[in-house]
């Protein structure tokens, strides 16, 4: 038997864990906070803390038509990619979620694999494939590429919701004479809706933020916002990007709060 541990053991462990956890929190949050502060600078550079505060860069943002154009494209592609991913992904999730067959497990792994494969390799292979087929890059090819990258979020969240579903409910519905389609429409879909919604939300954000696929499948006519921002930052450190970041951060937090209310997003991810 080991000797009874003393106060030093307790103090050293709890102290170290708390210290590292605080460091992690600071590391997670400080960058976002710093960008928000810098976006209100009245200077020409990204100095922190700013010499003074103003809304001038938010004013400049109104004029930045290139960013507006890229934002429009990004939203359009994200919308269609999410739509496609939700329709295909929910159908597939229904098929694989409760099936004990090996084929179902293999399909499940296949549909989740874009999450861990380097997306850049997939982006490049899509470009080669579409050029082999003779399809010029367009919004359509972007939507196709983004859908592949977005589907895993829908499948994963819908499968999770389906496995939590009580089989008794479905059996009860069936034993009361409801058809399978009726049970799907009136029991299954309403109960898994939060899972589908949070999966769709994550899919939308994954598309909106996608770089590795857009990098290869966009051209000047289909400029995408993250790529535009990246190229602006490569060229010169533009404070307008800080203002745009400020807008996007606030919008993201607002949508997260909304999804939390609608679907209990945080409970689904943990």
């Amino acid at each position: 038997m080991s000797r009874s541990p003393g106060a030093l053991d307790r103090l050293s462990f709890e102290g170290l864990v708390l210290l590292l956890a605080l460091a992690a929190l600071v590391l997670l949050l400080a960058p976002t906070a710093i960008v928000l502060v810098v976006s209100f600078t009245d200077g020409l550079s990204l100095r922190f803390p700013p010499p003074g505060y103003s809304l001038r860069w938010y004013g400049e943002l109104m004029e930045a038509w290139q960013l507006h154009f890229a934002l429009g494209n990004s939203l359009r592609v994200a919308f269609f990619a999410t739509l496609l991913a939700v329709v295909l992904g929910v159908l597939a999730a229904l098929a694989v979620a409760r099936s004990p067959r090996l084929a179902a497990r293999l399909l499940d792994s296949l549909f989740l694999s874009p999450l861990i494969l380097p997306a850049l390799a997939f982006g490049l292979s899509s470009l080669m494939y579409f050029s082999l087929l003779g399809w010029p890059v367009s919004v359509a090819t972007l939507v196709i590429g983004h859908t592949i990258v977005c589907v895993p979020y829908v499948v994963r969240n819908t499968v999770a919701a389906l496995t939590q579903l009580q089989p008794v409910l479905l059996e009860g519905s069936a034993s009361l004479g409801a058809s399978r389609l009726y049970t799907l429409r009136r029991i299954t879909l309403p109960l898994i809706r939060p899972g589908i919604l949070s999966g769709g939300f994550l899919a939308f954000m994954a598309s909106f933020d996608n770089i590795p696929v857009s990098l290869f499948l966009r051209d000047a006519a289909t400029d995408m916002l993250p790529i535009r921002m990246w190229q602006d930052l490569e060229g010169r450190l533009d404070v307008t990007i800080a203002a745009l970041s400020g807008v996007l951060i606030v919008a993201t937090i607002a949508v997260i709060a909304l999804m939390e209310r609608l679907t209990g997003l945080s409970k689904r991810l943990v």
Partner: protein
Amino acid sequence: MARAQPDVTAYDLRLASPLALFFAAFFAAPLAALLALSLRGADGRYGLSQYAAFLGDRFSLGVLGGTLWLGLKVTAVCLGLGYPLALVATRAGSLVRGLVILAVLTPLLTSVVIRTFAWIVILGRQGVVNGVLSSLGLTDGPVRLLYAEGGLVAALAQVQMPLMVLPLMTALARIDPSLWDASEALGAGRWRTFLRVTLPLSLPGLIAGSVLTFAAAISGFITQSLIGGGQMLFMPGYIYQQAIALQNWPFAAAMSVIFLVAVLAVILAFNALGRLARGYAQT
């Protein structure tokens, strides 16, 4: 407990066929095209010459090794900081837990470009770190942090940390808290309880988080290019350069295949390590 009608709860596997077809046409076929193109040599003949060119080139091998090494360093930092955060959040009350989840989710859903941009503000010549250093009189002039590997690891760790923390929180929340009480009642201290109870039981989350973090860190093209700058080249930037700037598609394809295989090998190694560690913990 046999169910009367087990088929009522399961749906036909054919419902998956639209997505399976979509994956066949736009995921498997492009990857097959990548593989086919990678086999085309510079002289137009098919063979392994592109692979030989990459694997026989010290510079290219260095880039590949550097990329995998970078991924391991970022994963280690994420694990070192993310595990304590997940542990504190899991054991805390629901308010603290909710706040931590929000703190993890917000960066996860904020654009990677924005998060990377924040690091330019922090690490730049007029940035936060240099401001603190010079106001303390520790340095004469601005220190170069941007375009240096330490800065890149910190930035990538912040960008990918949520991918580590979320699966860890899931795994830790599944541990029955009475196991901790039992361990303490049997005389084990905090460290011993952690090493013998908490850590082994959280291995599935630890492996899942490490795999996601590693995969994201090595393919984080934007962060690598903005923070690393031109001096440091990693596989995604190298592939992009060969494919877009030099239009050398067969070589870029071969590089992509080698990169994919290397990533899969590291992921399999992670999983094997996890199984090994679990076996060890059970003895």
